[in-house]
């Protein structure tokens, strides 16, 4: 075997090892959480409120809280994100204004989640006086995912062939009619995948809701959008760092982590499958 071939063989083996270590690393997280969490799950765990200082009972309020926070954030960011993407892709006058928007969205995407939490605390909780509530948390999370919704929608709109729009305009349709009837419907599956992926992300975020929405313990369920709320990710954190029965609390934390993991992986999995089908369709 000559030297070049020898080097190639070693090089490829190293790369192979990289991917193996990576999969083992990440797989171990999924494995441990699944193995230790799956036994905790029961009908009671999913549907009952916590009892006996968090050591027994279920986590239903946390599941419901996460549901409301996620729903609220998507209701807020979905229309805004699509509108922004439409403006950037369809109207897109090559102006300084558009460039500034583009740059600020890119930078918004890189802002640490805890900083969004600070913003939410200062603006929604204090300035607008919404208090620590579902509303404050949803708005904070909504701003957090806005950049990803915008960029997914942009990608989807850009992948709609230009000829579609030209055909529509040639038939005498106006720009708005073209957007409404051609661009958005054609891009909708792509936009939806972006939104679904965002759902997965929002559901697992903890830092932004720590001071805007979440509470450790509730007797019942939230009454309105102005109530504090329990949420799965924050509940895991609280169980691991507060309270007086670490042994039992860790068990419940595993259960919560398992629910969260299943939720996130399921939701993102669906989105990724839809997107791959979609990409095939447009031959990308």
């Amino acid at each position, binding site marked *: 075997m000559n030297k070049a071939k020898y080097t*190639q063989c070693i090089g490829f083996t190293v790369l192979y090892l990289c991917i193996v270590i990576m999969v083992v690393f990440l797989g171990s997280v999924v494995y441990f959480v699944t193995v230790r969490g799956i036994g905790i799950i029961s009908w009671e765990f999913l549907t009952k409120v916590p009892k006996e200082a968090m050591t027994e009972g279920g986590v239903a309020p946390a599941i419901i809280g996460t549901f409301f926070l996620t729903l609220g954030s998507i209701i807020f960011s979905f229309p805004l994100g699509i509108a922004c993407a439409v403006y950037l892709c369809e109207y897109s006058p090559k102006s300084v204004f558009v460039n*500034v928007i583009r740059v600020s969205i890119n930078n918004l995407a890189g802002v640490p989640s805890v900083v969004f939490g600070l913003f939410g605390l200062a*603006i929604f909780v204090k300035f607008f006086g919404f208090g620590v509530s579902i509303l404050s948390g949803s708005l904070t999370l909504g701003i957090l995912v806005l950049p990803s919704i915008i960029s997914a929608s942009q990608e989807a709109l850009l992948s709609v062939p230009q000829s579609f729009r030209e055909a529509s305009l040639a038939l005498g349709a106006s720009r708005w009619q073209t957007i409404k009837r051609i661009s958005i419907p054609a891009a909708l599956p792509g936009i939806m995948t972006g939104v679904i992926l965002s759902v997965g992300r929002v559901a697992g975020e903890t830092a932004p809701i720590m*001071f805007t929405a979440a509470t450790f313990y509730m007797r019942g369920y939230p009454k309105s959008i102005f109530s504090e709320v329990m949420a799965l990710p924050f509940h895991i954190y609280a169980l691991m760092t507060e309270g007086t029965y670490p042994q039992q609390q860790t068990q419940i934390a595993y259960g919560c982590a398992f629910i969260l993991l299943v939720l996130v992986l399921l939701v993102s999995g669906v989105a990724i499958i839809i997107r791959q089908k979609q990409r095939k369709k447009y031959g990308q």
Partner: protein
Amino acid sequence: MSIKREKIYELIFGILAFASLLFFIGITGVLFKEGLPIFKNVGIFKFIFGKYWYPTYEPPDFGIFPLIAATFFITFGAMLIAVPLGVGGALFINEVATSGQKAFLKPIIELLAGIPSIVYGLFGMVIVAPFLQKLFHIPVGLCAFTASLLLGMMAIPTICSIAEDALNCVPRSFKEASFALGANRWQTLTKVTIPAAGSGISTAIILGMGRAIGETMTVLMVAGGAAVIPKSIFDPVRPMTATIAAEMGEAVVGSLHFQALFAIGLILFLITLVFNIIAELLSKKFRKRLGLGL
């Protein structure tokens, strides 16, 4: 008849697009407004380079140097793990993997990138920390090393998938030219593909680093929480993000402590901003070099 209406629609979309810009301005504004007073009250030099962080003592000390040091210390460690593995993984997927392996690995990695940080935190606290404690005979498992390891794990999928996108952008003709000259696949990879994708791979690394610096829950749970300048990799530390998350709940609104936490947020924001701008410039350079649009 409808030209006027068309203009109105364009205006509406423009305004909504402007709203997203407004959030960015808003975040910047809030951080400056709430955080800047501490620089005046404590002194900018004393705040950033002060060695002691005792916000609740009487009199309090607001030196965030240990927190900044911890953040960079942990991030550096995480990158030592994530960069080789992430880039190596991307090279494998792009150059070595069969199309079957590729179709399997790419979505799996993207899926794993979505695992919430709180799950890593729990995993680190209950599994990794006790394991490392036994393995290295260290007094506490919750330390900088554990935090680096977990942050590294979390950054791998990000780096891997962005680097893979960059490798994908290298035109086939580059490789074909190299093969035609008699180079084998490894030579083509190291001499042609990697240099061509270099700035794209750097973008991936910088974005991964930005992610690691801003990561909160994992470091809050596994880094140990002691606000001291780390001397060894097994020291417990308290990074900037963890400090904000841990202390904001008890800081009185408007107090010095409250201002200090916002100022930490401001510094964090500026650091990630710089990282983002560098990443953007690199990716522009990359696209220009390969003659891609945008």
